[in-house]
């Protein structure tokens, strides 16, 4: 059913569409980030147990959520790409993977940094941290596979297949790690999630999550556009685009 979408026009239109959407996302990201970070770090009340060190939650939780969101985006794109043979969707998988990997890395890093004051060690085999570490491995596998193919059309398809295999496996991995953790560590470690979070703390957190989500959109669109330009660099529309930009 997608065959009528002429492949030439399609790439051009997607490039333009991505270009139109990107500024809107950026407009949403910047103010929400400033409000969220200032509110969270300076005005939200300190935690009665953890003091100020809990404030890293304003980076850690949004990053961890967006690490998963990026993967879901990739999975949907991979599915569309493979089922309808849409090369652009496969390209989106490749564009989103490094963004997701970096979010995962931020989540891991802030999680470890949070662990230092909480547990007295930089690294603890907490279920959630371990799952994030494995998610990072999966991202790295997808990126490495994509880079290993010299033909980028095949690379995109291979990365899409691996992404879908990961979608089935990641929940199993997470489940197994949680189980492994409860058996091995018992209740000696306080979990991240507190029974409830005060409203004054929650609102800046939600703002930060919103900000991270829109920034995820910006990054994926940006990378999608550059990926597209690079892959189609010899096409007439790209050459024309470069000439116009060059003259202007």
């Amino acid at each position, binding site marked *: 059913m997608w065959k009528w979408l002429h492949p030439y026009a399609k790439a051009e239109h997607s490039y333009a569409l991505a270009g139109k959407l990107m500024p809107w996302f950026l407009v949403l990201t910047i103010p929400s980030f400033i409000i969220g970070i200032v509110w969270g770090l300076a005005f939200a009340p300190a935690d009665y147990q953890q003091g100020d060190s809990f404030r890293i939650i304003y980076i850690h939780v949004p990053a961890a959520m967006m690490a998963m969101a990026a993967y879901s985006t990739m999975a949907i794109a991979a599915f569309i790409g493979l089922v309808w043979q849409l090369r652009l969707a496969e390209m989106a998988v490749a564009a989103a993977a490094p963004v997701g990997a970096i979010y995962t890395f931020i989540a891991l890093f802030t999680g470890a940094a949070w662990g230092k004051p909480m547990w007295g060690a930089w690294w603890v085999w907490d279920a959630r941290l371990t799952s994030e570490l494995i998610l990072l491995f999966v991202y790295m596998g997808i990126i490495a596979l994509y880079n290993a193919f010299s*033909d*980028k059309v095949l690379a995109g398809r291979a990365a899409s297949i691996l992404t879908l295999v990961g979608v089935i496996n990641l929940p199993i991995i997470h489940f197994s790690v949680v189980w492994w953790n409860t058996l091995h560590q018992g209740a000696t470690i306080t979990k991240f999630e507190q029974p409830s979070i005060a409203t004054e703390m929650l609102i800046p957190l939600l703002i930060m999550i919103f900000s991270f989500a829109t920034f995820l959109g910006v990054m994926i669109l940006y990378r999608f556009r550059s990926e597209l330009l690079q892959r189609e660099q010899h096409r007439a529309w790209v050459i024309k685009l470069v000439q116009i930009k060059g003259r202007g």
Partner: protein
Amino acid sequence: MLECRNLTCVREQRVLFKQLNFMLSAGEILHLEGPNGAGKTSLLRLLTGLSSAYSGDIYWQQENIIKQRESYYKALLYLGHKSGIKPELTVLENLQSFQRLYSTQADADLFEALLMVGLVGYEYVPAAQLSAGQQRRIALARMYITDCKLWILDEPFTSLDKHAVQVLEKRLIKHAEQGGAIVLTTHHELSIPESAYKKLRLSAPAEEEQYV
């Protein structure tokens, strides 16, 4: 029988051929010509469905081959650069494997086929111990037991001696006479009369057309 519509092939961003159209009916032999790198092998692999085209479609009996792989492969015999011969298995085992996994004549006689390609006496020798030309002949022996209609042959004459070439040419003509169709590439001058086959020339696209 076989039809290509607007076939465009791109490899690592370079166009090999563009908007290619042709039709092949029963009883026809199509000889693909062109310099090295013109995309002959790529076209053959597209025709088998092993690789997918950048754009355009291939039809077998008026239906897209992607949508009917299993029935298309019942009618397709493909001989590639790599002959698909397992070096650890004997000549006979290799042929038996072909007989069980592909569509063959019900009364196919493996020894008869080995006789035709001159491998009698080597039945129980592991393929690894044979010369390149002999290994090639194992693959060619498939042509005597198959009942596939469409043959796609990539350089079938490589490393064959003169006599074997003649035998093979006769087999090709016979297949066409029996209503089969053949697409082949070769740098060897066919001794088949010009009228008996069609030619399709692939040439590298001009500089400004190298990219889609």
